[in-house]
Every structure is written in C-alpha cells, then in structure tokens.
C-alpha cells in the first residue's frame, strides 16, 4: 500500500477490503467500527509481523554472528537484540507518529506520540483505530508491522562496523539514526504527504527506506570508525558459518512477511510478492555462487547465503510491482553485482565494511530500486508511467536516500565520536568484545 503515489494507493485500498468505502478515503488514521476489519488480512499481517521480527532476532543476529571471530560473537548478537529493544521503545515514543501520520513533506506529525489515540474499544463500543495506509486491519497491527521494519534497518548497519564499536556509542548512534534518518526517509517515501511518495517513487517494501539507507549508514560508519585492528594482516575468517546459514535461512523465510506483508492484506498482490521474492532470491543465490565458482574456483556456503540475501534485498522494492520472470532477472543481476561489490570493490576502495552491510544492502538496494523502474508491470502495479520516466523517478529516490543516508549518518557518528568516543580501546578489541564489553564468552 504504502509505496504507491497517493491516488493509486487510495484506489487500491478501496477495493482491497471486502467492505468498500462509499465516499472519500481517509488521509489520516481514523476510528472505525470493528466490522470494517478483515480477519483474513489481519491474520496475515499479524503473521507477517512475527516473521519480520524473526528476521532480526534471531535471523540477522545469527547471519552476522557467524561471520565474526569467535571472541566477538556474543557482542554481535547483542547489538541486534539491543537495537530491537531500543528502537521498539522509540517507535512508541514518537517514531511511528513521525513516520506514518500526515505532516510535512519530510516528517509526520506528533499525533501518535506514545501511540496516543491508537485504540481498541471493547464491546459494547466495538470500534478501533485504523491507519489510512491499511484500512482493513487494526492500526495496532499496522504500527507493529512497521515497527519490525524500523528495528531491522538499524540492525543491518551493524555489519559494517563489526568488532570495534563501543556498545554505549552504538546505542546512542542507533537511537539517533532511527529518529533522524530512518523515520524521515520512511515518511518521505511511504506516507502520502511525503515528497518522494508524491513524486511517484516506487518502493514496495523498503529498497530505499531500509536497504539503501542502512547500506549508506554502514559505509559512513566503517569510514568514520576505520578498519579493524590487524585488518589485512591478521586472519579474520568467519568463526561459524552454521550460524550464518541459519540466519540467512530465517531471513529468507521472514522476508515473506517483509515483502508479501507489505501488501497490507492477504490477497493476490501478496501472493505475487511472495512468488517473485522466491524467484529473485533463488536466482541471486545461484548467480553469486556460480560467479564465485568461476572466478575463485569453489562455490562457498558464505557465497550462496550472501547471494540469497542480495536477491532478497534487490527484489524488496520491486516485489509488488513485477512478475516472476523479471524477478529472476533482478535476482541474477543482484547476485553477480553484489558479489563484485563485496569481493572486489571493497578491497579496491580499502574501507573495512566488515560484513558487507554496504556491499550487499547498499548496492543490492540500488540495483533493486533502479530495476524496479525498468521492470514495473502496469498490470500488477497499476502504475502507468513510461519506463524511462519511472527509471528517472527511481533514480531520484535512490539519489536522495544515498546522499541523505550517508551524510546524516556521517554527521551523527562524528558528533558521537566527539562526545563519548565511538571505538573500543585496542586492548578491548584484541581481547574480543564478548569479554571486554559484556563479560561473557562462549565455549
């Protein structure tokens, strides 16, 4: 729903629900009678919410945790877990309100701070509040679903600065980033009053808002923080790719909630979104695997898993707009391009994007956002722009996110570095963050 220009969006809403709206569609959250709610849509959105939370914990936590050295695995898991907690509370505080209520072109209003006015009224009143962005489900469900997007996005960034950031600084950075970077971009792209939404930028489930955004923040952070101690000299192989493969698998499964859940309903569009997600992911996993097999001599577990994630990232913005065959193409492209980004570009440009947050999410997100403009199907999406025009609009969306995401992250990081310092001491880094920051270790 949320990724469509407003008019189209409203039209879709009107027909998505069994009970049609007679007159003008709402542009802000409204209170409706409980019988306006579709139990089927609600069931799917509750499920999707659970799936997307599972992407973060344990999915992403394990995906990253398996790639670091053994002495840092708990610290890496802890980052994701703590980010989920902090951003959940920020979402309640003001994040949801700033992102998904109408307001200025850049940020929403304060009306839903502390989830104020988000109600469910028991019998005999039998009313509840509903977001204007998803009219057939309770607003609580919409807010929860969007919460799971808000928590995973900053957690993705952590892959770039693995093994060297202070936990306290990380908490501050993520809190600031969530409110100052994620929330505004989400508003601009997904809320009808946001300017990129009005400009027609298509981002079905978060190619720009989630992936490019997190990727650019990752790039900023690995530049600001510098390389890991001993990078390039010491051995830093992933300590346990079993964890990484569990993580990649749960990301894949959970991503069905991410993409098909972004339909806001259990309908034909959700079905198509799930199908194209599967196609792109399988294609990208194989394209990375074969690219590696050909160029490095062996197909690797880390490679196929990374390829799958690259495919998931790239199909994200396109998932409600394209058919299965274009999805295969998007996947093939994303797999091989992200392979180059993670294995060559990084070493060429000499930043230490430790777990390739930028290489996979940034680059994959850009590939997906641009190809969305190429492959968008009028039949599926209802969007009638010419390919060139849509491509240019997409380019605009990408450019804004790339620039704002990088610049804002950079500034926030520099400020935190000035105030409390970003990086652990050399001794802590050498001993490993598990023991030095958290006083724990695994056997």
């Amino acid at each position, binding site marked *: 729903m949320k990724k469509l220009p407003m008019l189209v969006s409203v039209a879709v809403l009107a027909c998505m629900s069994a009970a049609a709206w007679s007159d003008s569609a709402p542009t802000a959250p409204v209170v409706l009678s409980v019988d306006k709610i579709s139990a089927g849509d609600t069931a799917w959105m509750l499920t999707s919410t659970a799936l997307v939370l599972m992407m973060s914990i344990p999915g992403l936590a394990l995906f990253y945790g398996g790639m670091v050295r053994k002495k840092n695995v708990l610290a890496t898991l802890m980052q994701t877990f703590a980010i989920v907690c902090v951003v959940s509370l920020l979402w309640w505080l003001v994040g949801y309100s700033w992102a998904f209520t109408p307001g200025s072109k850049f940020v929403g209003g304060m009306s839903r701070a502390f989830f104020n006015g988000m109600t469910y009224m028991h019998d005999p009143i039998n009313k509840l509040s509903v977001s204007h962005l998803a009219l057939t489900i309770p607003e609580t469900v919409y807010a929860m679903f969007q919460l799971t997007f808000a928590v995973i996005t900053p957690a993705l960034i952590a892959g770039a600065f693995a093994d060297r950031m202070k936990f306290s600084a990380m908490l501050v950075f993520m809190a600031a980033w969530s409110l100052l970077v994620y929330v505004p971009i989400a508003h601009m792209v997904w809320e009808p009053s946001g300017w990129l939404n009005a400009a027609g930028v298509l981002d079905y489930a978060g190619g720009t808002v989630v992936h490019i955004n997190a990727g650019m923040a990752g790039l900023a952070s690995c530049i600001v923080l510098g390389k890991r101690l001993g990078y390039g000299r010491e051995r830093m*192989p992933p300590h346990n790719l079993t964890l990484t493969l569990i993580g990649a698998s749960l990301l894949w499964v959970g991503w069905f909630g991410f993409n098909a859940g972004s339909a806001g309903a259990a309908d034909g569009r959700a079905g198509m979104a799930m199908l194209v997600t599967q196609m792109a992911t399988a294609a990208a996993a194989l394209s990375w695997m074969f690219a590696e097999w050909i160029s490095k001599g062996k197909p690797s577990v880390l490679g196929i898993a990374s390829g799958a994630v690259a495919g998931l990232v790239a199909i994200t913005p396109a998932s409600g707009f394209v058919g299965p065959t274009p999805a295969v193409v998007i996947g093939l492209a994303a797999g091989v391009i992200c392979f180059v980004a*993670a294995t060559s570009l*990084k070493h060429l440009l000499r930043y230490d994007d430790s777990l390739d947050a930028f290489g996979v999410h940034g680059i994959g997100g850009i590939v997906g956002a641009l190809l969305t403009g190429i492959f968008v199907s009028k039949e599926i999406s209802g969007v009638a722009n010419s390919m060139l025009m849509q491509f240019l609009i997409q380019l605009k969306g990408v450019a804004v996110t790339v620039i704002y995401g990088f610049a804002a992250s950079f500034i926030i990081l520099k400020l935190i570095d000035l105030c409390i310092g970003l990086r652990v001491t050399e001794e802590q880094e050498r001993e490993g963050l598990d023991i030095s920051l958290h006083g724990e270790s695994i056997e």
Partner: protein
Amino acid sequence: MKLITAIVKPFKLDEVRAALSDAGVRGVTVTEVRGFGRQRGHTEIYRGAEYVVEFVPKSKIEIAVDDALVDQVVEAIIKSAKTGKVGDGKVFVFELEQVVRIRTGERDSNAI
C-alpha cells in the same frame, strides 16, 4: 624411563594405538595439535579475502615407557603411522626422570 612423543596424522591415531597396545603399552595421552612443516595446509576464501591455513591438524601421542621398550615402541609407531606421504610426522624421545601413579603413589616402572 623414556617419554616417547609422536606427532601423527589424526586419522592414523586408532591404528597407532592398536600397534602400541600390541607392543605392550598400557596407557597413552593424546593432544590435538597444529602442525607446521613441509606438508602444506589449505586455502579458504571468504568473500574475496583469502586465508591460507598454514597448519595441518595433527595428534600428539605421549607414552611413558621403560627403557627396554623404547626401540620396540618407536618401531611400532613408525610402522603404524606411516603412509609414505609428506606430513606423516615425527617421533621424539626424552629422558624421563620420575614417574608417579597418583592413585597409589607407586613410582617409576611400577607406575607406568
């Protein structure tokens, strides 16, 4: 008494132990070690970063024996651990001044 230390390929461990048993050895102590030598390790590549794993996993077997048994035991090890390929390992022999069995306090030959 002597302490004989053998560094062997891990998959040969069971064979060596059987041979030692035949040679009259009652007990041994085994440690997993990493060997660096002529036998080369392998290469791992993770997202373009190559790591040469220079070591090869080896098993270190320590055996305390009476002087009389030394040659026989060394022979048994060599025979059973040999594949003829690089990396088969080494045998070291050290003088062992005292042995005590903790359970009984027995000493030297009686303690082995």
